[in-house]
């Protein structure tokens, strides 16, 4: 299988072309939202915490929260691209039906759509990383690179979950529920704004299952806490496993839905 086959590249090119009109809005959002978040959390809330002489495992609040903000941006961006637009592609504008009338395969449509969303997610991630740097949120250059690396893994693995679900459902109300009761809690309770071990023990497994927690916590471990670096390979395997399972399921669902 050629991962970047001609059909896959054609889908990516198509989606990039279709999104160029709202590029300005996207750019404003990817730039302004991190500035606002970092200012409120890193500088505002962070200075309060730091002023109390408190650190999180020896790390200032801005440094603690930075990887989580970058990774969650990747996650939320791909979710936006791979939920309603996927259901819409089957039900409303039937864009997948049009693609499938050509020689390309359902697997190529899945990959092209996922890679396009990941490109968007990564663009947002890189902008965010630079803004974090301007705020002094990275302890080292490697730290920023690890964060981008884990954001990419997260974009692919969480993105394919969203794509899979959205290809399966018939109604957008299910997507609304998924966003409110899965995506948002993941964003809030994956050790994003506070360390996972401040949660009651029975809630912590939610964090361990969360792709976002793995991406964030591995970046933190590799950057600040070398004694926890063992987590990184586990997280990489975990994220790749999610990716593989949901990729195969997505191709199956797309094939079934398109060849009905």
């Amino acid at each position, binding site marked *: 299988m050629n991962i970047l086959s001609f059909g896959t590249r*054609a889908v990516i090119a198509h989606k990039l072309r279709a999104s160029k009109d709202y590029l300005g809005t996207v750019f404003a959002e990817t730039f302004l939202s991190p500035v606002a978040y970092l200012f409120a959390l890193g500088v505002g809330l962070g200075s309060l915490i730091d002023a109390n002489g408190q650190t999180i495992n020896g790390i200032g609040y801005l440094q603690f929260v930075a990887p989580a903000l970058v990774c969650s941006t990747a996650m939320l961006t791909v979710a936006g691209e791979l939920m309603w637009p996927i259901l819409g592609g089957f039900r409303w504008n039937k864009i997948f039906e049009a693609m499938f009338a050509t*020689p390309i395969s359902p697997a190529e449509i899945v990959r092209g759509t996922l890679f396009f969303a990941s490109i968007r997610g990564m663009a947002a991630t890189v902008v965010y990383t630079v803004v974090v740097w301007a705020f002094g949120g990275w302890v080292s250059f490697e730290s920023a690179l690890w964060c981008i690396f884990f954001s990419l893994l997260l974009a692919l693995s969480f993105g394919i979950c969203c794509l899979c679900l959205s290809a399966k459902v018939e109604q957008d109300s299910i997507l609304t529920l998924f966003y409110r009761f899965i995506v948002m809690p993941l964003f809030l309770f994956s050790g994003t704004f506070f360390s996972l071990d401040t949660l009651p023990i029975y809630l912590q497994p939610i964090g361990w299952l969360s792709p976002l927690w793995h991406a964030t916590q591995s970046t933190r471990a590799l950057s600040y806490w070398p004694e926890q670096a063992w987590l990184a390979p586990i997280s990489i395997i975990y994220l790749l496993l999610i990716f593989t399972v949901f990729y195969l399921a997505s191709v199956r669902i797309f094939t079934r839905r398109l060849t009905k």
Partner: protein
Amino acid sequence: MPNPVISAKSLVKKFKDFEAVKGIDFEVEPGESFGLLGPNGAGKSTTMRMIGAVSNRTSGDLEILGMDPSVDGPKIRAQLGVVPQADNLDQELKVWENLYVYGRYFGIDKKIVKDRLEGLLDFAQLKDKRNEKIDDLSGGMKRRLTIARGLMNEPKIFLLDEPTTGLDPQARHILWDRLFRLREQGTTLVLTTHYMDEAEQLADRLIVVDKGQIMAEGSPAALIRQYSSREVAEVRFGSDSNRSAADALSGVGDRIEVLPDRILIYANNGEEILSEVHRRGLVPITSLVRRSSLEDVFLKLTGRSLID
């Protein structure tokens, strides 16, 4: 005789318990314009999707350009042009970009795609709309763009699923004219329609489909000859009186059909029939004489009119 480009034998498609296509046989010759005529829900679109190598058959044999669609789907689709029932243009792209992006899916070189789309914009009479958004096009323009898009890969077979449904008469005629040109150029056309006039205009040969089965097959003229008389007299007596008037007209013409709103009397000479109606002391509210059409063929074959 050349090999058929499409050959279906005992073709069946089931959706769970519902059998949408119940074992149909037909062949399409190269260069032919072949029609599937039938009411909504007859199984036309399902058949088209199987021919288009996007929907797998439940049983039976199907060969498109000598290949099996369940094995060589992508290879077959590479040589087909498809105009689906509902336009599925990309609203986020401009008119010309819709053609460009689509051409690229066939692996056609960028430069060739750009050259070819200019010719097709011309063909679809959309040259001055090339930079418009899809939302700004009329229904007829969208349809023509979808047709132009389907021609990007210079297909061997062009599949059109209800090409003019929902269009106003003028837009339909422009579209027919474009399709007529394709026919003249020797493109093999396969189209479904529930409009008799469209089938008569565009199809060399057609099958009449109802409830997933073929009711009749032939050229429009041959079908009319076989299943109907030369002319039809249509008389209206008002919805309450049609039934009793029909009783009084028994024996007039070759055959009488009583519809809710009118009575159809089939005969060789319609004017003579109208005289006979008056001779029997019946005075219709309105009356007219017309040539038999495929609508009459359908009525004869199924006992129902096409658009219920």
